[in-house]
């Protein structure tokens, strides 16, 4: 178990990178607490798998250092870092039984037979695979195979961290939540640092205590699921997390007001900075209907079960509103009200308003 610190990490797959665009990872600086559950969230190609492979030692970063409890492990191979990794497609050793699969990492490290037997039984019991210990691993279903590859990581009691690289991709939807809660339960029992890579916000938000959102090789925000939802630091986070994502509306910033399509909107606080492109960011959940406010034209109403998603147009800008009752008819004229404490201005994508002191 260890605290993981990534210091000034940069990585490029090219031998001599020139500009920042040649880097798959640009300047990563993160510290992860011992025993925490973290998620790396971002779209495909954002560098999250690269980062994961650097932490596990399958890749050596071009620049920067990785510290496990202040010990520099940047140059160490994977087997000496005491980490475990679960891959997108379950990796199991076909010719071995489930029990032999679980025992394999311990055998390779020369652990005595007695300890191996004890650990394998412990882990098998944790994963509910005790009854399969003597069956051949090749015939198992994908979710059980994924459990076994998880088990191979957990069977060592010296693991610093367990990494998951989109582990639920090949699992049937109805088994996903089962395996996810198993993971959560395992984290509580094993107390190892767990890092979970995914592009699925539900998986990230339910698994992690803290989520690292990445885009184009950069960390855009690190925060708890609530923080990411309530106060996105970047329009990307706002848009990527939430369904539908945050409304990003072109506007002009004037002190603690934003002017959007000729209408003044009160913000959470004063804006800072100058120039650049300014956008008004507000989540659909915080836009409401009223008797007065910004006039809008309703174009579409979608019933998605728990609530309705209303698409509306203000001037030339389209936006979305989430509401539970009082749904307007498509084609009707409505007035929109923006919650001031949830309305923010983003300058070139980054948040540019200060929260008013409560």
């Amino acid at each position, binding site marked *: 178990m260890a605290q993981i610190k990534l210091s000034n990490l940069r990585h490029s797959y090219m031998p001599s990178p020139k500009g920042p665009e040649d880097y798959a990872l640009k300047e990563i600086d993160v510290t992860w607490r011992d025993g925490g559950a973290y998620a790396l969230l971002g779209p495909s190609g954002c560098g999250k798998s690269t980062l994961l*492979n650097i932490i*596990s030692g*399958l890749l050596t970063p071009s620049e920067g250092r990785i510290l496990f409890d202040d010990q520099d492990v940047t140059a160490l*191979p*994977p*087997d000496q870092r005491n*980490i*475990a*990794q679960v*891959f*997108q*497609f379950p*990796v199991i*050793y*076909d*010719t*071995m039984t489930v029990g032999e699969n679980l025992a*394999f*990492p311990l055998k*390779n*490290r020369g652990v005595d037979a007695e300890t191996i037997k004890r650990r394998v039984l412990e882990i098998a019991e944790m994963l509910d695979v005790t009854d399969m210990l003597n069956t051949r691993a090749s015939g198992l279903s994908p979710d059980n195979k994924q459990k076994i*590859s998880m088990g*191979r*990581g957990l069977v060592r009691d010296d693991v610093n961290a367990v990494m998951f690289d989109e582990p639920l991709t090949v699992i049937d939807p109805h088994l996903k939540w089962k395996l996810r809660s198993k993971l959560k339960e395992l984290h509580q029992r094993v107390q190892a640092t767990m890092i979970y890579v995914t592009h699925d916000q539900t998986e990230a938000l339910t698994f992690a205590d803290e989520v690292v959102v990445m885009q184009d090789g950069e960390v855009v925000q690190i925060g708890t699921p609530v923080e990411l939802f309530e106060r996105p630091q970047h329009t990307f986070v706002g848009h990527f997390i939430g369904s539908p994502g945050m409304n990003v509306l072109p506007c002009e910033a004037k002190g603690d007001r934003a002017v959007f399509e000729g209408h003044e909107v009160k913000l959470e606080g004063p804006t800072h900075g100058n120039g650049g492109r300014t956008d008004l960011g507000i989540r659909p959940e915080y836009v409401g209907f009223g008797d007065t406010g910004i006039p809008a034209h309703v174009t579409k109403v979608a019933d998605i079960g728990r609530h309705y998603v209303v698409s509306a147009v203000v001037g030339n800008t389209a936006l979305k509103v989430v509401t539970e009752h009082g749904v307007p008819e498509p084609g009707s004229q409505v007035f929109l009200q923006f919650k001031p404490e949830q309305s923010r201005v983003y300058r070139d994508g980054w948040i540019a308003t200060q929260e008013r002191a409560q």
Partner: protein
Amino acid sequence: MRTENQKAWFFVLPVLALVAFNALVPMMTVVNYSVQETFGNNQFFWEGLGWFEQILRSDRFQAALGRQFLFTFLILLIEVPLGIIVALSMPRKGFWVPVCLVLMALPMLIPWNVVGSMWNIFTLPKIGLLGYFLNDVLGINYDMTQQPLSAWITVIVMDVWHWTSLVVLLCYAGLVSIPDAYYQAAKIDGASPWSVFRYIQLPKMKTVLTIAILLRFMDSFNIYTEPFVLTGGGPGNSTTLLSIDLVKIALGQFDLGPAAAMSLIYFAITLLVSWLFYTLMTKDDAE
């Protein structure tokens, strides 16, 4: 009662006709010869299983069969491990992949009789490059036209040169289909290179390797042209394999009956061994 439409059988007829003319009819002719005796004039006399008994009891057949098994055994013993080793050491990606693949495929593109002639000229003691080099430069007494051991070594080396590529290419195809995650997981699990081979590469190669061994068994067991061109079965009878002996009986001595009986026995052995091998290799998967 349910009536079934049997018209679908007509669709099978063309295939049946094709198979009949290219396999069943020629085969039945052989079966026909194998149970009869003729003195010419298209007159045939019933012989029963006499020829089979005679062939099976003859020292000549048993010796040729022994040589054939020894040859095939040595071929598999050398080509299969060698093919795996070469496949493992080939690059998986980059510029050298196509180069290696083409170089590997080259020997297989050369016709059998050309391979025989090439090696014949190459290994002749006085004029062949290899023959000259071994005798006059290294001082090794080597003459594949006179010494049975030299002849055997030459025939084996020639076949290894010609056909190891097949094993290599099949194994390589199996190897490149292994996802990277397997190697990464093995690294993290602390597996040794031997464990990686034993538990990842070999199991993933098993299917293609089965095919490779099967093909190499059948081909080397039925081999004819290359050793015939190279040594003609000599010196003496030392490299007279089953097929060479069969041609001698059938076309040299024109003993139709014994030759037909011998080819049926030959065929039965090839079929039996192939079937046994394939059943054994795929038994685990069925479970």
